[in-house]
């Protein structure tokens, strides 16, 4: 019969997925590893609402992300949205709940976020993030701490061959401030750089009235990628104070990273801007050869908290759990799979003993499945074998199971039959 391909309510919506036991286990494992690393560094977990006022979620995010939010009305007619990322909710929470408290604040989260995007491998409409925000520090050591923590998180879960690109958005912003260009052209230039559309970048720049050296300063951005040496190269290209300061901060942070012993995993790249509008200083993103998308990203956002009412410098990052699973699998890293259960079934008269045995084994930390269905011995054994139980235990007389290979054993003073 021809399959009916029209809508059916058993499907999940495009861009969403079910995590079946094996995958749910991997996800749980990664999240536990990462969140415990965060707490080792003194970051405390917070949980924010899945949906909030659209106006709060859109602060600092720019129109592109706002268009991707799932929006709806509540019964008072106010616009709500599902959170598309976690930085704005945390900024809102800090202003709302931690007003006047001692800074710095170190907060972490595990959250599902929602964006209406074209679904792709590694890009879904509901996905999971783990991340941290460090609030109240403008020191470069804070930037270095966040970058080092991002690197350690990826190492902790066993990711190999990864690297982090670090940029400084102020370098580009400084260039823009000094150039006489329409705001529209500036935002187009930024978009070209973010998307790495260098053909359009060149066309745009050559159609402006900028001087040769100004054009050169913009067009050389993609080439400013590498180690410490690019800072020196960049310094020769610019004359404005803001860009100069950005380069000095980058230099400073790089030195801190060297001291923290993580500079090897880091590439400096002045064309890294990231899409979100709220970034003000350092930005970074992590990637590996084994996945065509970035795995983690973050940066400094010193003005965002001010927009919520209480100015404070801040920096943070998040890592995509789904993308992390994909890259680890592409690298062949073994993640824990579902552990094997012990199955206990019993003859009618042995029910009490079976319950007691299950209780004791569970106390020891074993995963025990106790038969609850009334069915034949053959049906119970068949079920246990289909489910690939690690051990099948029978309580009762051996006459019942003569058709199977078995062994006798004593567990907690109780004689049991182990089906082979």
């Amino acid at each position, binding site marked *: 019969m021809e399959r009916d391909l029209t809508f059916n309510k058993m499907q999940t919506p495009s861009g969403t997925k079910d995590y079946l036991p094996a995958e749910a286990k991997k996800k749980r494992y990664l999240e536990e590893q990462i969140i415990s690393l965060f707490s080792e560094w003194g970051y405390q977990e917070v949980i924010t609402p899945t949906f909030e006022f659209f106006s709060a979620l859109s602060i600092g995010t720019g129109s592109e992300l706002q268009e991707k939010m799932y929006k709806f009305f509540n019964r008072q007619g106010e616009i709500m949205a599902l959170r598309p990322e976690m930085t704005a909710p945390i900024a809102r929470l800090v202003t709302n709940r931690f007003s006047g408290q001692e800074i710095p604040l170190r907060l972490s989260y595990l959250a599902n976020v929602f964006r209406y995007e074209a679904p792709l491998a590694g890009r879904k409409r509901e996905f999971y993030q783990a991340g941290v925000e460090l609030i109240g520090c403008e020191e470069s050591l804070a930037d270095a701490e966040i970058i080092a923590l991002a690197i350690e998180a990826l190492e902790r879960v066993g990711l190999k061959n990864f690297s982090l690109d670090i940029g400084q958005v102020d370098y580009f912003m400084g260039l823009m401030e000094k150039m006489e260009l329409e705001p529209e052209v500036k935002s187009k230039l930024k978009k070209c750089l973010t*998307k790495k559309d*260098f*053909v359009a970048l060149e066309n745009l720049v050559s159609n402006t009235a900028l001087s040769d050296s100004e054009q050169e300063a913009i067009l050389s951005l993609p080439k400013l990628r590498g180690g410490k040496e690019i800072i020196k190269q960049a310094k020769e290209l610019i004359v404005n104070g803001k860009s100069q300061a950005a380069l000095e901060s980058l230099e400073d942070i790089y030195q801190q990273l060297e001291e923290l012993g993580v500079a090897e995993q880091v590439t400096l*790249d002045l064309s890294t801007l990231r899409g979100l509008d709220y970034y003000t200083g350092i930005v970074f993103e992590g990637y590996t050869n084994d996945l*065509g*998308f970035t795995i983690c990203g973050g940066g400094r956002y010193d003005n965002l908290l001010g927009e919520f009412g209480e100015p404070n410098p801040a920096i943070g990052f998040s890592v995509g759990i789904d993308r992390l699973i994909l890259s680890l699998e592409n690298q062949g890293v073994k993640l824990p799979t579902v552990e094997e259960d012990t199955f206990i079934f019993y003859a009618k008269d042995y029910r009490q003993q079976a319950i007691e045995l299950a209780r004791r084994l569970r106390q020891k930390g074993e995963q025990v499945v106790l038969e609850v269905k009334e069915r034949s011995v053959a049906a119970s054994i068949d079920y246990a074998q289909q489910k690939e139980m690690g051990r099948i235990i029978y309580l009762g007389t051996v006459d019942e199971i003569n058709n199977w290979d078995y062994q006798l054993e004593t567990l907690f003073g109780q004689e049991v039959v182990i089906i082979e």
Partner: protein
Amino acid sequence: MKPLKIALPKGRLFDPVVEMLREIGVVKGDLSDDSRKLVLNCEDQEYCFILAKAVDVPTYVEYGAADIGISGKDVLLEAQKNVCELLDLGLGSCRLVVAVPEELGVSSLEELPTLLRVATSYPRVAEEFLNQQGIQVEVIELNGSIELAPTVGLAEMIVDITSTGTTLRKNNLVEIAEIAKSSARLIVNQVSYKTKFERIQKISNGLKRSLNADVENN
């Protein structure tokens, strides 16, 4: 070292692209797009070629199945993929245009009657462009022989690529607006751009040099 995977578009761009890559030493032996094998040369240490349908090249590159690829700008505009666009190769120049049958007697967008059907294999570009011009259309997606649509009464106008205009003229169609200029672009996966930066820069710079040399020779 793993070979750099390059997606090449089969069809009209194939020969000039291969020629260009041969000039800079990336293609060495014979490469033919009617080869039955779709993945070539992968035992080589340096480069491996994936022969893809032109419209699929951006997809291969976005996912990282290919590190780099060559794709027409027309295809990129329609596909809206998240890939880096490094270089305009100037090959396969053409224009995306709006065209109508001659007998309609229309020479600009303003003169178009209301309620139109437009046949195209660039539905996204067509709808976006015409919408921006304030023209309401019903987009009919076709996968080829677009110019036939008005003749058989499927649509009143078309959005398609043209290079010399011959096909349009043969089918009694006249261009009334240009949407975009197109030519072949060197595109790169967002992550490969970072992880294989030097190798990709080498190709990009090589191509750029041979482009400049061509300009000087002409």
